[in-house]
């Protein structure tokens, strides 16, 4: 093999690897990502049954119902709309009524949000960024509200 041929082999190898990487990324980006929505969005145009979404908002007051074997029902609200949700598992320690929450899962045919992951704030003053933005959008953002979403993020 001449020097030129060797170099050509190398370059084509690099090309193959790069092309497959790009292909994989493009494929995964069309399929493997999760969109962030708010309860208003879900009601306005419900995502298809097999599409994973992240739902952010506040846990509606008085909506948490604990059933047998770790099944929890609650509702996520952004002040304008409310979406009922169901989750099986152990909730984060700071999952509370009236506090921010991000749930990941799918919306089933009846409009119930079946969550497989629930994230709550990590400490007293933390609020997931997506929730803050969603609440700002729906006009529910009240940083001055003592027990509402706190304006400052994690200070530690």
């Amino acid at each position: 093999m001449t020097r030129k041929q060797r170099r050509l082999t190398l370059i084509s190898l690099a090309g193959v690897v790069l092309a497959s990487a790009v292909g994989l990324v493009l494929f995964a980006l069309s399929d493997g990502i999760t969109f962030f929505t708010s309860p208003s969005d879900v009601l306005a145009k419900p995502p298809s049954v097999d599409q994973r979404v992240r739902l952010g908002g506040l846990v509606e007051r008085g909506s948490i119902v604990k059933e047998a074997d770790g099944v929890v029902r609650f509702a996520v609200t952004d002040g304008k709309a409310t979406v009922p949700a169901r989750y099986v598992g152990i909730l984060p320690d700071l999952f509370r009524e009236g506090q921010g929450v991000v749930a990941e899962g799918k919306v089933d045919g009846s409009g119930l949000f079946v969550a497989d992951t629930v994230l709550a704030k990590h400490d007293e003053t933390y609020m997931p960024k997506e929730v803050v933005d969603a609440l700002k959008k729906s006009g529910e953002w009240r940083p001055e509200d003592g027990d509402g979403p706190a304006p400052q993020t994690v200070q530690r």
Partner: protein
Amino acid sequence: MLLWIVMAVLTAAASLAVLIPLGRQPHAPAHAGAARSIYRDQLDELVRDRERGLIGDAEADAARIEISRRLLNSDSGAAAEAPAPPPAYRIERLVALVLLPLLACGIYLYVGSPQLADRPAVNRAAEPTAQGNVDDLIAKVESHLAANPEDGRGWEVLSPIYMRLGRFDDAVRALGNAKRLLGSTAERESLYGEALTRASGNVVTEEARAAFDRALKFDPDDVRSRFFLAMALGQAGQKDDAIAAWKALIASAPADAPWLAAAQAELAQFQPTSTVTAAAPTAGPVAPGPTASDIAAAAQQSPAERQQMIEGMVSGLAARLDADPKDTTGWERLFRAYMVLGKPDEARAALLRARASLAEKPELLAVVEQAARDIGIGKD
């Protein structure tokens, strides 16, 4: 002074870090030498690889030629550097001696606080907090309680402060401890219920309702419990019961009760056409009792304002006791508050006042004296 000496020493050390190498010819390994030893390593390794069959004969020869060529080249790269007489380094020395310290001092004076001494926590327990803020006071009580978690009175003193600051979860904890350690009373139960209610955003939860019910067992006329239970009925959607409860509460109220307006406003929600003239509508439900009106505001108050508020509460208590000295628990609470505020002298003065006004009632004074000794002021 010591600070400036240490800083001067450090600065001198920094200058020296630049000055020393300027005055001394460094030991300088030539690049070529290091490279050559690596090429010799490579040749050795080539022989080893050859023995192990890791490289073919032809390739080994090619590689040997390649490496040898580089070995030769590396020699030519090493130009002999004639040791020139070192220059005077006037600018460099100036930089090290003048610019460097000047820059350091300038930046430090801009960002640093040389006038402040260290304040290790160990030395500060006895520090007076007269000019401190309310967070300090709370911190003192909290650390006292962390060390003596069985001090029920301490928890009780702390709880209204938590309520005022809007730290309802903490208030629940404090009142729960007070209840556990000092026993249930109507007031403790109803305050506990209020804290629970506020902690859950003014929703009277099941737990809170149980607390109010317990309070009513001790004192069927406990206003706070009746107020919140009426609110609970409203929240549960039992409209008629709620109206009846509010009406009964308002009927039994003295005309100047501070919570009357709030109760009337609640009632008005259910009876828009009620004959009761609705008071000015309030934004949220307002609770009776001393923690009624300004809880929401307290959280936004400046430390100075909060401090003022607490001092106001204490001086109010003092004034009440001067008018009505028979309240032994009141005295005890006052002593404790002064101690917590870091004003032991005031506490002693209060004890003297108690002695004076309770002179004819030795049985009450004995209780107050005992309390003072427990708190640690009645020794003289």
